[in-house]
């Protein structure tokens, strides 16, 4: 494999602009890496021609002396939750198998406009519901990482953006899109030792992104380092009149604003994030992160987010409730699969289509969502959860009186083996304990690799910031990145 695939987004962009290599050479190198990575099962569809066509446009623009856009020549992976014109888009479900959108999602269109090309559509948990990429109709994604015990157990890449995490960590793509509803960018980024940021709710348009829980869903980049995330987030963000919750604000120049000095900044450490049974190594890494930020000039303050323990149960009412409503559109009439048993009427057709088309976890969440929204239960469940959500957001508001960003671990464990948690849905839900509260409050949050555990697996640190302060989040993450010196990468076995 060519060394070109070792390069990240910034290096590719600059190298193409400087003529060190052509965009086509870069696309060919990553296309070859994609073709060789089948054992990871990270792609549902490969699109080498899309990557080459985008690269050729960039090479022609450069030859013509045009100014190159911000991601010119960078081939990326696209989570299969973003609608891509003419390219199968499934959300890793059977019910959307064969669906080829007639339109392009705003986020993917912005990336193509920025000069990026598409290597393929990345596998994920079905409808982004999962934390291990084990709910995909197209099979599990295998993490490129293995424990150092020689056992070669297949590990979860995290979820739901598991394919995105696997290809960036495995040097199969320099960057990939993710989406985050309760931690689906940050947890997989932590599991595979890469960076990923969920911006403030409303920064990235949700138009053309297959909906899971609309008040929580946010797109974001997953890449090798903080700078690459800043570049890609700039390309993905921006106002879109087609999304009613899109923020009508100019996109800040996050890359130009990067600054690893934390002088004059206060970093809050939420005491409620010390959970039971957290591995010692994660506590130790958290302490190390505190030391790194202090070294960068920050003042460390302990803060309290008293409603933290209610975030997960509130999330598991709100997200399934919104999902049950959003997924009502899959009826076998307008798009996707239809199951029409002999002699079936319209209602039978709906029920059969949805029975055959949705996986177990999706059905479980639709049923929970339907239950909590049903007559007689709505107030006790959904309204109560929406009130608790307001209290959680208020906790963060109070914390911002004492600090500028918060530092926490990203996940309560390192990557687990495939199958290890899938028997107990509740145990799987608890893996999102550190990422869900900031999702409920719509805040920007980022995972950055901090180190390895005893088994040789990556652990991540999470930085949470004020609404619209992606810059503060990126800068704190950069301060950690510079001190962590994380260079570990999975040895290639695929």
């Amino acid at each position, binding site marked *: 494999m060519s060394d070109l695939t070792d390069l990240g987004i910034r290096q590719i962009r600059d190298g193409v602009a400087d003529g060190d290599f052509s965009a086509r050479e870069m696309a060919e190198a990553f296309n070859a890496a994609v073709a060789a990575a089948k054992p990871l099962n990270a792609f549902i569809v490969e699109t080498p021609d899309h990557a080459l066509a985008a690269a050729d446009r960039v090479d022609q623009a450069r030859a013509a002396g045009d100014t190159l856009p911000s991601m010119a020549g960078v081939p990326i992976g696209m989570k299969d939750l973003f609608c891509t014109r003419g390219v199968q888009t499934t959300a890793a479900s059977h019910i959307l198998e*064969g669906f*080829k*959108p*007639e*339109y392009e999602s705003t986020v993917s269109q912005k990336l193509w406009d920025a000069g990026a090309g598409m290597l393929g559509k990345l596998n994920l948990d079905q409808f982004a519901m999962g934390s291990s990429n084990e709910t995909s109709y197209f099979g599990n994604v295998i993490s490129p990482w293995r424990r150092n015990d020689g056992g070669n157990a297949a590990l979860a890449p995290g979820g739901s953006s598991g394919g995105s995490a696997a290809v960036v960590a495995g040097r199969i793509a320099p960057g990939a899109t993710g989406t985050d509803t309760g931690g689906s960018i940050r947890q997989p980024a932590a599991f595979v030792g890469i960076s990923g940021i969920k911006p403030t709710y409303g920064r990235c348009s949700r138009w053309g992104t297959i909906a899971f829980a609309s*008040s*929580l869903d946010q797109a974001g980049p997953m890449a090798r380092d903080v700078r690459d995330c800043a570049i890609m987030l700039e390309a993905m963000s921006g106002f879109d*009149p087609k999304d*009613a*919750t899109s*923020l*009508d604000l100019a996109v800040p120049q996050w890359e130009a604003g990067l600054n690893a000095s934390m002088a004059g900044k206060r970093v809050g450490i939420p005491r409620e994030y010390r959970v039971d049974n957290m591995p010692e190594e994660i506590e130790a890494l958290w302490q190390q992160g505190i030391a790194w930020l202090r070294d960068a000039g920050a003042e460390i303050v302990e803060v309290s987010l008293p*409603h933290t323990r*209610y975030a997960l*149960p*509130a999330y*598991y*009412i709100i997200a399934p409730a919104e999902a049950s409503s959003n997924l009502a559109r899959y009826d*076998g*009439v*307008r*798009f*996707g699969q*239809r199951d*029409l048993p002999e002699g*079936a*009427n*319209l*209602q*039978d*057709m*709906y*029920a059969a289509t*949805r*029975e055959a088309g*949705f996986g177990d976890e999706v*059905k*479980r969440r639709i*049923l*929970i969502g339907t*239950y909590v929204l*049903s007559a007689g239960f709505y107030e*006790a*469940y959904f309204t*109560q*959860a*929406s*009130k*608790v*959500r*307001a*209290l959680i*957001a208020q906790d963060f508001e109070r914390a911002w009186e004492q600090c500028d960003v918060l530092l926490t671990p990203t996940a309560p464990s390192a990557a687990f083996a495939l199958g290890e948690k899938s028997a107990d*849905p*509740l145990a799987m*839900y608890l893996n999102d304990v550190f990422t869900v509260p900031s999702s*409920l*409050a*719509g805040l920007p949050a980022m995972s950055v690799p901090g180190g390895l555990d005893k088994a040789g697996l990556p652990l991540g640190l999470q930085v949470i910031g004020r*609404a619209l302060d992606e810059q503060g989040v990126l800068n704190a993450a950069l301060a950690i990145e510079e001190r962590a010196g994380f260079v570990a990468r999975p040895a290639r076995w695929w």
Partner: protein
Amino acid sequence: MSVDTATVKRVAKLARIAIGDEEASRLAPELGNILGWIEQLSEVDTSSVQPMTAVIPNHLRLRDDVVTDGNIRTEVLANAPQAEHGFFTVPKVIE
């Protein structure tokens, strides 16, 4: 909290998902377990709290009431499992 199979079937009917007896018996304890865990929310005093309606303060935008899209029947029908004469088709609803 215990959820019986009749409840599972009732909810599945509301959600338009066909579910057999065996699946309903498997799902009942699973859903009971999850709903039981969610139940802890009731201990939070929210008597003086307004439910959250917008995650990030935003204003509702208005636009001119004009046609901005349309004449894309082929595209709209392109992914339909069954389309005839420019329409979506479904099993007969009225005899």
